[in-house]
Every structure is written in structure tokens, then in C-alpha cells.
């Protein structure tokens, strides 16, 4: 249960090896979270050891493949059954390739959509059902500035993030009155293994900065958080740019 200071006890990370996801969970543990489940498509021994060292009393890992959509409800239920109440679920799995890769392989594009959007929705709905039943808890979704106005150079990834963002914002509304909620996180460029090799964008930030923003937003009960905050302003400008201008600067 969340306490009066906004400290939580139990946290689940879907995409249990995500740089941003682990940074968020690490900060939550530093702030007082004690029980953690990492759902990943392989072992996460280093992360487990680090979280235990940071003060978690239990860190379990669960096998999770975002592409195996039909398994998701079962995976989510088994995690909740094991932990009891879950205070925060961070959903941080995603893939991102250069648009040329998707141009060359529509199948790869479809898989990206499965991971970044379908699987976010299949797990998100299962999580929402459990949060609604327990009457509290927050689902944290990692959207992106890439989904605010999709750039041709980032077409597939941006489209999945646009879909995820719409899903998250509206899922929060759907949960209104249930005690549960969704926090939609919209980072700019974050240096992680997802963006390795990509050219750094302006206002680039770190997983730790994203984590600080998420922990603050959770304690304050926010619905949306931009990281860094300035990308919210940038996004507002992006949204209203006339199409010809947008095409030119986003190419």
C-alpha cells in the first residue's frame, strides 16, 4: 500500500531489463519500495543483485515475452497472485529500429507494433483489471515525444508510441473512480541501449532523470509527465507547426 508520503511497497517491471525501467524501479526501492518482480525475456541477475543491495527485501524474475500476446493475461495474473497488492506496474518494454529496417521488412515492422503497442495493450488491460479490483495502484506507461507528432524518419516507432499514448491517456479516464490510474511518461531522447548508435537529439536526458520525474509524478498523483520538462513545450510547438514546415524540419 502507498503510504501518506507516497511511498510504495510493491513494484512490477514489465520489460525487466529496460534501462529506463530499472532506473525507475531502483529509485522506487531507494524511496522505500520493498518487493519487486522483474518480468523479462531472459535472466536479469545483475539487476536482481543491485535491487537487493539497494534495499529491496524480495526481487523475483518472471519469464515474459512481449511477442507472445496470448500469454500476457496469465503472466500478469500470476504476478499479482504472488505479490498480493501491487502498487506500481512499470511497463517499459519496446523495440526500435531505424525506419529503413522497417521499410525493408514489413514483418519486422509488424513485430515492432506487436511489442510496442499490442503487447502494451494486452498487458495494460490485464493490469488495469487487477488494479481496478484492488482499488488502488498505478500503471506507468513509457510513451515518447516521438508519438506526439510522428516524423517520417521514425514512422513505425512513432506510430506505435502515438497509439500507446492514446491508449494510456484514455485508460486512465476509463479507470476514473476506481482508485487506480495510469501515469503516461513522455521522455525526449534518453541515452539507453534502445537508442545506442542513434544520433543524440536536443535535450537528451538520462534514465536516472526519467526515474526522478516518474517517482515525483507518482508521489504527486500526476497523469502525465514530460522528461525533461522542456520537451513538453517543444511538443506543444511541434503539434501546431504547419505541415510543410514540419516536413522540412522533421526529415
Amino acid at each position, binding site marked *: 500500500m502507498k503510504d501518506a508520503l507516497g511511498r510504495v511497497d510493491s513494484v512490477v517491471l514489465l520489460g525487466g531489463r529496460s534501462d529506463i525501467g530499472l532506473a525507475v524501479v531502483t529509485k522506487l526501492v531507494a524511496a522505500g519500495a520493498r518487493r519487486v518482480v522483474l518480468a523479462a525475456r531472459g535472466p536479469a541477475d545483475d539487476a536482481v543483485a543491485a535491487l537487493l543491495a539497494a534495499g529491496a527485501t524480495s526481487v523475483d524474475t518472471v519469464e515474459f515475452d512481449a511477442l507472445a500476446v496470448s500469454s500476457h493475461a496469465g503472466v500478469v495474473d500470476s504476478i499479482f497472485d504472488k505479490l498480493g497488492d501491487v502498487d506500481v506496474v512499470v511497463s517499459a518494454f519496446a523495440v526500435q529500429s531505424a525506419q529503413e529496417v522497417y521499410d525493408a521488412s514489413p514483418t519486422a515492422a509488424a513485430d515492432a507494433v506487436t511489442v510496442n503497442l499490442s503487447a502494451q495493450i494486452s498487458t495494460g488491460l490485464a493490469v488495469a483489471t487487477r488494479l481496478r479490483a484492488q*482499488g488502488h495502484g498505478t500503471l506507468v506507461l513509457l510513451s515518447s515525444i516521438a508519438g506526439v507528432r510522428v516524423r517520417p524518419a521514425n514512422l513505425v516507432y512513432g506510430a506505435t508510441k502515438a497509439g500507446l499514448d492514446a491508449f494510456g491517456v484514455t485508460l486512465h479516464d476509463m479507470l476514473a473512480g476506481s482508485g487506480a490510474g495510469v501515469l503516461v511518461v513522455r521522455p525526449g531522447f534518453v541515452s539507453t541501449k534502445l537508442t545506442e548508435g542513434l544520433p543524440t537529439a536536443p535535450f537528451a536526458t538520462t534514465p536516472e532523470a526519467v526515474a526522478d520525474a516518474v517517482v515525483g509524478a507518482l508521489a504527486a498523483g500526476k497523469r502525465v509527465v514530460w522528461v525533461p520538462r522542456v520537451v513538453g513545450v517543444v511538443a506543444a510547438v511541434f503539434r501546431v507547426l504547419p505541415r510543410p514546415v514540419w516536413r522540412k524540419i522533421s526529415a
Partner: protein
Amino acid sequence: MPIDDIGRPASLHGWGRTAATTATVMSPRSVAEISSAITRAGSRGVIARGLGRSYGDAAQNSGGLVVDTTRLDRISLDPVTGLVTAEAGASLDAIMRVLLPQGWFVPVTPGTRSVTVGGAVGADIHGKNHHVDGSFGTWVRSLLLVGADGTVREVAGDFGNPLFAATIGGMGLTGVVAEVTFQAIRSETAYVSVLTRRAANLAEALELMRDDNDYRYTVAWIDLLARGETMGRSVLTLGNHLTRAELPASKQARASAFAPATRLSAPPMPSGLLNPLSVRAFNELWYRKAPRVPATTIESIGHFFHPLDGVADWNRLYGRAGLMQYQFVVPLEATAVLRGLVERLNEHQLASFLAVLKRFGPGSGGYLSFPTGGWTLAVDLPVRPGRMAGVFDEMDREVAAAGGRIYLAKDAVMRRGMAEQMYPDLEKFRAVRADIDPSGVFVSDQSRRLGL
């Protein structure tokens, strides 16, 4: 089975207005309705709720059922023996209005009259008279308890009986108390004679309270922002009920009248207004207002016991983030620990209006009952989300190490694992629950948070 048809969904929080969660709330009009609701509750269980004056999350049950008792409010008094039988949702305010005109008073009253008899049992509440009269539970002669299977048991007021000892102070976790019979105390009038005196610092305040048993009601209001020489400076108020003969002629006509009014609500305020500067100014004024030489006055019961009840919803003064109260007790001999904790609160300049310091007499025997012999300090604090957590954790550990404990009715931030260190009878409490409620029907946000 769905519980939506038993009650209505509502977001609930305690007096501190923190950590709200959503539950299905039903307001039974009969004991039978409590029973049937309990047997139909789903997997998220049930907890009783009175007037929600506990500060934290004790009277809420996220995703489950909450039994709001406030419609069960019948009160009867035997004017000869002073035995009161009240339904669980009857408030102490309503009970006082029945008792005082007939020369009786509740044996224990907290700092607000807006608590139910059920809440008085659930938290085994204490008053300014704890050092002579003990806690509420010691005055209970019997109670009706609706258990996990929906059956109604009469439980005699005997701390040798594990079910009674678990229920007094048991924070609603043994079942829903439907009715309580307790012994009232005599009070010929609705007035108290009050001696007010200053104590220049903590040592003097403790000295004045350590051995005093001449006054039934004693409490020290302590200024936690005062530093150095004056650290712990206090204003002590010591009171006794007044007999009719002792009352001045001007008050004779309405000697037993008790009809306090509640004034306007406090407006919600940005919490920044409560800062060390504004609070320091307030505390200074208040200390100066107390007489330099001890002086005796006559005060109404409402004025003496429940000064804050005059302003409705004063908890809104703390703004959106809400407030919390930190209340602990440490053994009498642990004055060094007490001093250290006062210094700690002082050093962090936690903006707080007056804190309350008091000496407790021996405990009641309730397994999770808070009062035990020693010094108790209660301080209201504005909540700053994400901050201060480490300070509370450390203070909790110091309190536990000194053989003390935190009051569960005030707790909103304690960590799992601490209750075990503070409440030596927790295992007995768990054994009773395992016996009468093996599937864990009774559960609250607090019991989930602390793993009670």
C-alpha cells in the same frame, strides 16, 4: 461475487486526507445487515469505519467492503448505575449530550468528540486522564462482535479473554463491533476547574507531570519550535470536574447544559502558509498568553477537552497534500530518548502547531492497545510527499528500541516489520485472528501496509 449491490463506491481517506483508496461502502441499519454484508463480502474483505478520525488508512479497505457504522447510533443510559449501552456508530458527542444532563460523563474522551464508540474500542482511545483512569477499553463491560462468519458474539469485558484483548485496540481486525456497554463516570456539571501553568523547558514539564495524581486530567502543550534553553517549553493544563457546589452562582442555572456549536469550516489553504515562521509566531503568542504565575479558571467541557471541535474540517488547513500525526510512547525512564526525539523534530523544523505531551498510566491489556506506562508525544505535521520519510523511519526505530511504540490510529507511514518490534503481543493477536477469522475476512489498508 460482486459487492457493488451491497453498497456504493467511495474514495476514502483518514483525518490526514492522505493515501485515499476506493472501496464499496455500506451503511447498515441493523446488526443483521452487518452480518449479511460480511458473509457476502468478496475476496478483498471487510473493515469497519466510524467517523474516520483516525489519521491514516486504518478505516479504509481498498477494493473491498467498508461498513460505515454511523447509522447505528442508539444510546441508552442507566441513570442509577451509569452503565451506557451504545450502538457502535454512536458518537461520543451524542453520548455526552445524553449523559451530562443526567450527571454522567464518558470515562475517556479524545481531543475530538467526533469519534464513534466503535472507533473508541478499535483504537482503545485514551484521554488526558489516562494516568488515573486508563484507556477506553478498561471501562468496557461487554460488547457485541460480528465475526467473519457473520455470527454475533457477546464478548465479556475481561482482558483474560483473548477475543476481548484482541478486539480492544484491534483496529477493527477481529470483526465489526455492533454495540458496546461501558461504565460512565460521575460529573455533576459540564464544567472543569483548570489550573494553567508554564514550564520553561522540557525537564520542568516532565518534572511537573511525573508524580502528579491530584488532577484527573493533565496535559502539556509543548512548543516544538523553541530552541536552546527553552527547548520543550510548555503550557500545562490540569483539570478536575466541578461539583455543583463549586460552581459560581452565575453558572448554576445551566450547570449541566452541554450544547457546543461548531463554527464555520476552515477554508482549504495552500500548505505553504504553514511554515516555520508563521507557526513560530503563533506558538510564541500562545505561550505568552499563558499566565506567568499558575492560575485557575473554570472552563466548559467542550472548551477544555475539544478546543479544535469549534472549527469544522480544520484538517483542510494543511492543503492538498494533507497532514499526519506522529504519536509515540516511550517508557517513563526513557526521558533521554524522549528528549532526543523532541530535539530531532525541533532540528528538522517541521512546522507544527503545538504538540501534546502526556504521561500514561499502565496499559489496558489489549494486545494492540497503544497506551503503556510512559511519556507520549503527539505532533501534527504537514505532509511533504516524498520527503521526511527517512526521518520517520529513524524515529520509529528509536521508539521501538526504547521499548516504545507508535499509535496505530495515527500511523500513516510506518514500515512493514516495525509493528512486530513495538507490540510484543502481536503474536497473540495473530493467533486470535487465525482462530476466529482463518481466511482473513477482516482487512484494512493499514493491515495490508503493515502486514498485521
